[in-house]
């Protein structure tokens, strides 16, 4: 795996990563809920409806996962340092 050599504003990059993690936890919880609904045997709900509703939650969670990835990419792009700052950052890292 190649290392990302681009220079980022560490503050913005860190915030982008943290926000993505929180959103991923929410998406993960939605997948868990969907799975629980779809596989729950201790219920009066019909198995077909359980699977449809559980499946819907999982699909929405996956859609949200795609959004999280897009949003993270956008935030990371926004955290890229401009050329002049990049030169300064490289100089600082050489020192």
């Amino acid at each position, binding site marked *: 795996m190649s290392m990302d050599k681009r220079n980022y504003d560490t503050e913005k990059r860190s915030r982008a990563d943290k926000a993505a993690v929180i959103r991923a936890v*929410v998406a993960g919880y939605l997948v868990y809920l969907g799975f*629980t609904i779809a596989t729950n045997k201790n219920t009066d709900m019909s198995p077909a409806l359980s699977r449809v509703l559980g499946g819907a*939650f999982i699909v929405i969670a996956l859609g949200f996962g795609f959004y999280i990835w897009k949003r993270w990419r956008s935030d990371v792009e926004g955290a890229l340092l401009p050329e002049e700052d990049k030169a300064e950052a490289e100089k600082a890292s050489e020192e």
Partner: protein
Amino acid sequence: MNTKAFIKKYTMVIALVVVFILFSVLTGGRLLLPQNMSNLLLQNAYVLVMACGMLMCILTGGNIDLSVGSVVCMVGAIAAQMLANGMPSVVVIILCLIISIVIGVWQGFWIGHIHIPPFICTLSGMFLFRGLGRAILGSKTIAVNNKTFLNIFASYINVPGIDGGEKKWSAFIVGIAVAAFLIFNTIRSRAAKAKKGYKQGSAISEFAKTIIISVLVLLYTWKLANYKGIPVMAIWILVVVLTYAFITSKTAFGRYFYAVGGNEKATKLSGIDTNKVYFAAYTSMALLAGLSGLLWAARIGSVNGDTGNAFEMDAIGSCFIGGASAYGGSGTVSGIMVGAILLGVINQGMSIIGLDNNWQYVVKGAVLLIAVIFDVVSNKKTGKAG
């Protein structure tokens, strides 16, 4: 303030009122029974307490603590074992709170000083403390029936001479005192501001807000008076909520959490030790998780290996529903209380209706989806990730 601004400012409060009315109708008024109103507070005590700690973590930049449910289990397990072995309850409580602080110091050290990402550190804590909790319990359910312990956390306040009859008047007297204080405080604060020549909001809206809150306090305490009086757990919740509200809104130390979440680099450059802020956030979170473990053990009367499962999601959910930002730097204690009560009303309402548990999951998921949609739509408006 125009209607649009009002709705934007009080979205969650309006949502709470709508959900409350909806479940009051759906339950045929049973939600409003004194016993259910009292239970609303007791069943959500752990969320209200832990949400305060989670807010401090989230404020530091959208960090969360995934280990809180496991800490609840472990501290509850330690308390149950010690009580079962005949240790005095006060000693057990003190020891459990010290152990909670030690857990917080452990996590705060790795996150604040070694800079391990909070997600990784608390995820490992989630497995570690759950495992330790189960080991302490020996995979059994241990009953908590120490009378003093239950009195400290799960009893009701009964003042001799006042609460002898069917009605527990002390609860309503407290309600009257709180309502009077709120009104007096509004008058005093406005008079002080007027004296100093500060710009103030409309007197009508400010007094209307105070009167509505006072009426709600009176109604709630009247309901409590008609049941068993004020639960001791309410005092614990009140102490935690007021302490955290004071720290976050009135102290410089509280402001540090917002500053770190707003811009960590600038905060560091202004001379604030950000490591200490992270350390404090995770230490206080673990302390509150430990306290929740004790409250839960007393409320349920037993502890098992599954105690505290998914509690972290309740605390995190309350914070986000209550308006804390995923990027940190914004959120208030009053906001997260609204979020926690909203979740509590939904849970309680569904239980009273006797809704099938699969439908309960669907409703919980739908609430979360609304938060997700809000997140996506609000970011679209700011032109990000569109």
